[in-house]
């Protein structure tokens, strides 16, 4: 507290500071609103929502998760949207219910939700579990189901098809050997054996309105009883759901499952892009600022570089397609992969070409940042080094570049931020709707630059516009968008940390 009689000095600035501060506050508000919206809508998707048993006035029964309410189109009263699942029984998974038609609503603890590999989810009751050993009913059936699912989960972890069979087939495409064929045969036999072991078990299910259904256990991924779960259990289920979203590949034409290949593809592509663009951009910046004669031509080049930063990204995509994919890639195929033609190896979109295209797209950012960093090194530092008998190269490497490193990293940060969010050019040069195999594996050359890859940005676009069911896709879109923001944030924080570390080592330049 200030003592009485003391006053702040009048600053006499009028409304301008308020106007400026207001615009900052507005941007902050918009940004936090965006993140909050993504977080709530996206992360809420993984929460095991309560399942209501709704009895209608006309005697019908349905089991569904309430999604939202809306005013009816004719303006009389409101209606509620339920996720009722059971596509195999009803042909649809959504049901609109007029609020006035609801006679009673309850949450019975025995309602189950099954996540299945076919037909989406099931919501209803579990009557019995049948296997060769016998048949269990009621509560015992639920306990047996949980036990079987755990076993099944353990078996799935082996992931024979993804981790053994597919790489084997890929190697067989390149070379033929007795040993590989034998290995493949053994793996297929093991898969058949496991299928047989699980194939015998069937679930007898009943929807709340009494229709019965037989469900092979092997198609069931998970099962839970949302109304019987305590909050800690729900929290654990939520955590597992988020983890599966992060660590698994997509299912059902990207409308379910996780986004791991897309995360991996995004990060890998951005890293490759940085590896290409950093040396290239830094050298170009050094040439423009330190080596080139500062004449009209250099000024022209500089203006051109700055203008390149404003070219729409799809134009870079077209360039990448024409020059990298068809031009360079096509030529590489003719020289080195002629035996595989007409099916292209490098002559089609892939990780390498996407990274190069984005490197080109972000090159101006790195050049401009490097140049500005170099321009900020005072001339007397350069002269000081020269006056001690340093050559120009020594002056650059020992005095000027260490002082410029933070600025260069700023350029790389900006480049990463721009590249990670680009989608349009990628569609032309190598992104895929579905590429569950990540382009890195244990097989020579380990990093498969010619492969197509998945990308979070494109995944959002694909899920939102190419899935049949917008209502179902929306939570995934939110979750993926949140993830994309987080990935960019992590990449940027890494670079910022690096920059801070280097600044501490080389001393900070006074701002001018």
């Amino acid at each position, binding site marked *: 507290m200030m003592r009485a009689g003391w006053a702040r000095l009048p600053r006499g600035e009028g409304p301008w500071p308020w106007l400026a501060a207001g615009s900052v506050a507005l941007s902050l508000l918009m940004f936090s609103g965006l993140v909050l919206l993504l977080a709530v809508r996206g992360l809420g998707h993984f929460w095991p929502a309560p399942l209501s048993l709704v009895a209608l006035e006309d005697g019908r029964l349905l089991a569904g998760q309430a999604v939202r309410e809306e005013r009816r189109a004719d303006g009389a009263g409101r209606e509620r949207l339920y996720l009722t699942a059971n596509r195999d029984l009803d042909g649809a998974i959504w049901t609109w219910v007029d609020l006035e038609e609801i006679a009673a609503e309850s949450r019975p603890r025995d309602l189950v939700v099954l996540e299945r590999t076919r037909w989406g989810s099931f919501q209803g009751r579990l009557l019995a579990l049948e296997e060769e050993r016998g048949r269990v009913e009621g509560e015992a059936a639920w306990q047996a189901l949980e036990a079987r699912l755990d076993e099944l989960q353990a078996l799935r972890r082996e992931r024979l098809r993804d981790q053994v069979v597919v790489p084997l087939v890929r190697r067989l495409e390149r070379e033929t050997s007795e040993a590989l064929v034998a290995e493949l045969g053994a793996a297929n036999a093991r898969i058949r054996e496991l299928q047989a072991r699980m194939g015998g078990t069937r679930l007898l299910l009943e929807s709340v309105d009494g229709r019965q259904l037989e469900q092979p256990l092997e198609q069931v991924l998970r099962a839970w009883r949302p109304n019987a779960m305590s909050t800690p259990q729900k929290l654990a289920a939520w955590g597992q759901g988020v983890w599966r979203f992060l660590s698994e590949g997509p299912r059902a034409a990207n409308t379910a499952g996780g986004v791991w290949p897309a995360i991996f593809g995004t990060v890998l592509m951005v890293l490759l892009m940085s590896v290409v663009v950093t040396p290239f951009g830094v050298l170009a910046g050094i040439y423009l600022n330190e080596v080139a004669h500062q004449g009209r031509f250099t000024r022209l080049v500089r203006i051109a570089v700055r203008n390149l930063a404003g070219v729409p990204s799809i134009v870079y995509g077209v360039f990448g397609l024409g020059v990298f994919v068809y031009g360079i890639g096509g030529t590489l195929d003719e020289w080195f992969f002629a035996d595989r033609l007409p099916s292209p190896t490098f002559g089609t979109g892939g990780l390498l070409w996407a990274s190069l295209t984005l490197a080109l797209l972000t090159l101006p950012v790195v050049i401009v940042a490097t140049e500005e960093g170099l321009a900020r090194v005072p001339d007397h*530092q350069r002269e000081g080094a020269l006056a*001690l008998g*340093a050559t120009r190269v020594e002056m650059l490497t020992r005095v000027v570049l260490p002082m410029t490193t933070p600025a260069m990293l700023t350029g790389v940060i900006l480049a990463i931020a721009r590249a990670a969010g680009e989608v349009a050019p990628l569609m032309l040069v190598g992104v895929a709707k579905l590429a569950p195999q990540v382009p890195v594996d244990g097989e020579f050359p380990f990093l498969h630059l010619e492969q197509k890859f998945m990308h979070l940005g494109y995944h959002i676009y694909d899920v939102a516009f190419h899935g049949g069911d917008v209502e179902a896709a929306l939570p995934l879109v939110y979750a993926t968008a949140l993830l994309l923001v987080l990935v960019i944030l992590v990449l940027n924080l890494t670079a910022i940390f690096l920059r801070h570390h280097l600044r501490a080592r080389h*001393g900070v330049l006074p701002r001018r």
Partner: protein
Amino acid sequence: MSVFPSPRPAAGGPIIDFEPAASCLEVEGLSLAYGETLALRDLSLRVPRQRVTAFIGPSGCGKSTLLRALNRLHDLNDEVRLSGRILLEGQDIHAPEVEVAELRRRVGMVFQAPNPFPMSIYDNVAFGLRLQGGIRKRQMDDIVEWALQSAALWDEVKERLGSSAWTLSGGQQQRLVIARTLAVRPEVLLLDEPASALDPISTLKIEELIRNLKSQLTLVLVTHNMQQAARVSDYTAFLQEGELVEYGPTDSLFTNPRLVRTENYITGRMG
């Protein structure tokens, strides 16, 4: 005292009052232009070995330009054109066999604003030695200590050789820069208004340092402070509009200038 001891003819050359017995640097007919602007006009003088020579003159007279020509710092500027010769110990510094980096090691320079590198104090002094390479750690330690002592800075920094040079005060930084230059054992030390950014006490320390250093090497000082030139230099050259006007022993130039232009400048009636 005669006001016009030897009136200078309108188109005559400069008054040069002395011819050093042993000259270290010789400038012969040097003209230098920045683009279309002539900064030095047909300038000739000799710099005596192991003495302090001061260049004085009004702003823009070309004294700094001349100084920077002596270790070829103008090479960096594409705009600069130059004619005439500069000899260091009898050798033309622009001769093709002269390596410019080696020349600058022999002709060290200290600038107006202290410019230590963003490194530790030790690394600053060792910078030039490391460029040459082939110096062992022990030897390096010795040279660093010797250089800092020669620059009268050792006692102030010996406890913190590892801390950043940018933590020193302005005067200390300037002495560090001098130590850094001395460490590579130059034959000539060029000082471009070395004390103009410093407080009076730091200035006195630098001036004392300059006087002490002349037993080891040849010093050339550019200053716009005439008292400073009078205090530390043995010989003084007065430049105006890119021309050498008068050059002679400091005592006689300041007490008994031969030209009215010189006297007017020294007594503060112009410039």
